[in-house]
């Protein structure tokens, strides 16, 4: 098996909370707390979880928009923390992103060809003709007409803008693209178009994706592996279809039970959680999910569970752990 493209090992990101006149740190937001995962070449890792679970922060860490507080992030075997300027530039060529809001992703004052060409002109010394040729090829790759190049973003619909954003992310032939809710802000009838496009591009170009979305069905459809996050930790990780059809962690079960049906006759076992998602500033002790878990045992509030191989995937839950 080929080595993974991206590997996170015990990744940690804590944000200090400061208060008071002298901005003294009074607490820590454990946004990402000891997270381990990997993304294979040409594969998609889907990250799911609700607000405060840490998936957005994980995306920022992968994109090097934030630096980790602890742990390792390895890309093609090399730790991206110790990279010099040259190394960072090389990393940026290989790792790109598409964000949720197609209306905010494009500079309203730049023409589409300039927007798509920006990564190119930043990294390479190409003459105008070569740049134009590459831009034209990218526009075609995402299924937009040629005249797109000279227009401004506001002349396009949400779905078309997202295609422009995708074209731009592919300008440098990256190896990994972080997709943060790429279709959530789009009309329902357009989502399928964009998801299909993303899958086609993956097959064509051998891209790896880190796919973040709250639409579980979309994540299950697009991903090879799924990681379920809760309050900064991964509670379950494994093959996408396995987890989608037979979730094991109680939170995963609740999450997939909460997903809306696709047919009125489709009944799902009701598993409604009590309470709200706690704040990452003050996560519960030991198993962070235990206050809301319908299967909580005394052990859950005293001993923190670890990820263990169970039934074809990894689960962090005492229900599946060997007796203490």
């Amino acid at each position, binding site marked *: 098996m080929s080595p993974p493209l991206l590997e996170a090992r015990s990744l940690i990101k804590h944000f200090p909370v400061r208060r008071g006149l002298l901005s003294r740190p009074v607490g820590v937001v454990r946004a990402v707390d000891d997270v381990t995962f990997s993304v294979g070449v040409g594969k998609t890792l889907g990250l799911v979880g609700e607000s405060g679970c840490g998936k957005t922060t994980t995306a920022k860490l992968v994109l090097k*928009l934030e630096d980790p507080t602890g742990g390792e992030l390895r890309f093609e075997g090399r730790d991206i923390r110790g990279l010099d300027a040259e190394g*960072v530039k090389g990393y*940026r060529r290989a790792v790109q*992103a598409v*964000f949720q*809001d197609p209306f905010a*992703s*494009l500079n309203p004052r730049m023409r589409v060809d300039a927007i798509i060409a920006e990564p190119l002109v*930043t990294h390479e010394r190409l003459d105008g003709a070569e740049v134009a040729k590459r831009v034209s090829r990218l526009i075609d790759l995402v299924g937009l007409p040629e005249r797109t190049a000279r227009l401004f973003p506001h002349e396009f619909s949400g779905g078309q803008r997202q295609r422009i954003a995708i074209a731009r992310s592919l300008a440098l032939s990256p190896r990994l693209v972080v997709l943060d809710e790429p279709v959530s802000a789009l009309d329902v009838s357009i989502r399928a178009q964009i998801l299909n496009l993303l899958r086609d591009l993956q097959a064509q170009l051998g891209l790896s994706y880190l796919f973040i979305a709250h639409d579980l069905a979309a994540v299950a459809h697009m991903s090879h592996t799924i990681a379920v996050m809760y309050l900064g930790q991964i509670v379950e990780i494994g093959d996408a279809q396995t987890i989608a059809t037979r979730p094991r962690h109680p939170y995963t079960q609740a999450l997939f039970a909460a997903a809306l049906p696709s047919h009125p006759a489709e009944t799902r076992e009701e598993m409604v959680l009590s309470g709200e998602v706690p704040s990452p500033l003050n996560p519960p002790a030991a198993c962070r999910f235990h206050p809301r878990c319908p299967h909580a045992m005394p052990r859950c509030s005293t001993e923190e569970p670890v990820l263990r191989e169970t039934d074809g995937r990894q689960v962090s839950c005492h229900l599946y752990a060997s007796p203490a």
Partner: protein
Amino acid sequence: MNGSRSAALTVAWRFAAFRTEGFPIIACSILGGLLFVAIFANVLAPHDPEVGALGERFRPPVWQQGGSEKFLLGSDHLGRDVLSRLIFGARVSIVVGFTAVIVAGVLGTGLGILSGYLGGWVDQVIMRLTDSWLALPALTFAIFLAAVVGPSEMNIVIILGLVYWTRYARVIRGEVLSLKERDFVRLAIVAGCSKRTIMKRHILPNVLNSAIVLGTLMLGVVVVTEAALSFLGVGVPPPKPAWGLMLADGKKGLMAGYWWLTVLPGCCIMLMVLSANLLGDWLRVKLDPQLRQL
């Protein structure tokens, strides 16, 4: 129903109150008119504004008793034609006003962008500078600087620029702080752009709108300050005509009933400031997509 009547009233109200949905024709006409007058002052003014005929002092405007057609709007304490002085005064106000606004704008926007985007100690230094600068009352500060460097038209422009850049810096910095979090800036970072490129290509064009709106709003403030400085004798030096200076000179004549020496220049100042404000208000609504009605 009373549809047509209420519609007519609405249109009248909007026109009269220069409502912001429509292009502020009146405001722009006034500003345009002032600009025209300023450019063609030499041609338009009937007399030399700096030369007075001592025999014709304190002539009231033509429509009052004692007025003459030679001095349409009257004459001042040195026999100089008020109309001509107002016309040339427009030139001073416009030149000083616009130039000062541009100087303040360039300085303030530039520092605001650096401060907002770079953060850290750059931000701290610039903001402390802005804070302390802002703490000084603008007029007093301007007077102090004028007293130090001596009054001249060029100096006044620089002084006003130095006094008012802080207004820009504050506002622009705020905008940059929120722009920084926008996705397209994040994507530019992910694409590998340098900070300088991002500030130039992504931040600057997107704050220009605010800078322009702020400029039109500052125009009024600057003109009033310039008038105040002239009024206090530290502005544009006499005998060059400036509206503020005319106010100062005319002040002495108020008790004697020579109202045109103060009211007329006052009206001019008011018209210019009001028009600039209305234009700025309209621009603000027009250029801010959030406020524009769909």
